[in-house]
């Protein structure tokens, strides 16, 4: 059964994509580093400390997460991933977006020809409900329909 959640659009957008879920903070640098360095066409998460995502492909998907964590290079790493076209299609935050992720999605929006749709404040219930592989439909007003 599909469930609907309402968040705040940080970067508004519409899409219907597959979910990939991190229940813990997403370490941006550690996650993108290996694929970016190897000039891969997709991001296979390389953060060994994140058992939810390690080894999984997040390119073109809806990355569901609480917040990002780690180095203050985080924003420009997200921007770089977008410029290299290995970024997730959307980032769906259960909590308020953090400053590094915000910088990343805004830099992507203003300085590249692509965007990462970003919705925050979706709540813990969203993160508890969504599972890897579920279809996620995102609407311009920040509505997220899961399943």
């Amino acid at each position, binding site marked *: 059964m599909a469930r609907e959640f309402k968040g705040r659009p940080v970067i508004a957008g519409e899409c219907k994509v597959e979910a990939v879920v991190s229940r813990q903070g997403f370490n941006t640098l550690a996650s993108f580093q*290996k694929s970016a360095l190897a000039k891969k066409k997709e991001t296979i998460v390389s953060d060994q400390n994140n058992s939810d995502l390690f080894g999984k492909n997040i390119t073109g998907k809806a990355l569901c997460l609480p917040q990002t964590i780690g180095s203050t290079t985080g924003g420009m790493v997200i921007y770089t991933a977008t*410029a290299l076209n290995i970024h997730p299609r959307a980032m769906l935050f259960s909590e308020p977006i953090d*400053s590094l992720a915000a910088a990343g999605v805004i830099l992507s929006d203003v300085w590249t020809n692509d965007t990462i749709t970003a919705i925050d404040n979706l709540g813990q219930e969203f993160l508890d409900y969504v599972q890897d592989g579920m279809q996620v439909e995102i609407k311009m007003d920040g509505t997220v329909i899961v399943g």
Partner: protein
Amino acid sequence: MEYKMILTPEEEAILNGSQGETMAKVIKTLILYGETFGAKRFVDVTAPGHVVTSFGISVMSPVFNITQELIDAGLKAKAPFTVDPRPIDYANVKCNPIEKLIFSKILYGEQARYEAQLRKLGLKDQNAFTCACYLDQVGNTPKKGDILSWAESSAVVYANSVIGARCNRNSGIIELFGMILGKVPEFDLLTDEDRKAKWIIEVKTSKKPEAQVLGSAIGLKVMEDVPYIKGLNQFIGTTLDDETKSYLKDMGAATASNGAVGLYHVENLTPEAVEFGEDIINKDAKVYVIDDAELERVKASYPVMWKDPNGKPDRCFIGCPHLTYAQLGEWTDKFEAELKKQGKTKVGMNTIMTTAPDVLEAFKAGDKAHYDKLVKMGIHLTSICPLMYMNNPLCGKKNVITNSNKLRTYTTSRYYTNNEICEIAVKGEI
């Protein structure tokens, strides 16, 4: 597009292209960034900036395209800025020929181009490469109340907490945009309200806690919130002297990397705790008690990331964040005593201490006795960023030990306390 931030006529004009298309994108980025966090207006930046991106890593070429666009548009920081440390120093951090080739040609192939870009954008000087830009010898030391556009988590938390300046935990590029515009959106740690503590940390240990473990415990618990730390005065006093500032530098870096702390207050010690006392604590603040057992629990929770956990250490890094002038002297004395204890004259493994270029020059000139001793002990001094040095598949495979909780967090290196690491480095094995 309608914006919620209230812009001055000058800011409105910049947004509409009065200073060119690139500058319009710079201010648009900062407006969107500020509005995400409820900023109502811009405030003027009042002190020089600090940039986190110091490495010309080839994969970040989209970032270097932005910096080139800024240069082509004739834009520059309003004041000379400092930047994080360089990633490589072949003279003092030895690399084999294959590593050297990969570093120079592949990994950091854009280093020369990027440093040339930084100079055009307003880099302070050739010695400006350090994460501890606030040290006296470096001179990018803000005053209490200054508004900053900095990135580098360890520098931001130091400036906010120990100096009482005001800066958000900005991402790379955002800090450069604030330095170019000369303004930053006002939110979070720039406001009185958000500088209040949401946590009370009660330190109840039997002895002075290891700064890097205490900071780690606090960061892991409070994450991005502001803590007010009680019970430390009995160990580190109530005066911000060199020794205490060094302690707070290391503790703060661990709070910022193990969590996401941008500001902490220490009772009777840091500027805002002294000025406001407990009025700076939120009424509903949560309490976290740290005793000996809790520190031991936190330290024991660090995963060992080495391929062979029983392997021999290859290299020891001390100084992340960069060591202060006083710390260089203290480490010299510490190693001298340990060598004597173990009946040796030289350290038993490749041991590297990192400090700011300006601090290193001052140390060589002003404390030659200690400097000569370090060299004689076989210890190398450099100004690289050990984190950037290790953050690649080649170096990630090395068995590195460190006393830095930040380095441990972001790399495969293994953490040891100051006493432990001194003993291991002299012995050459764990």
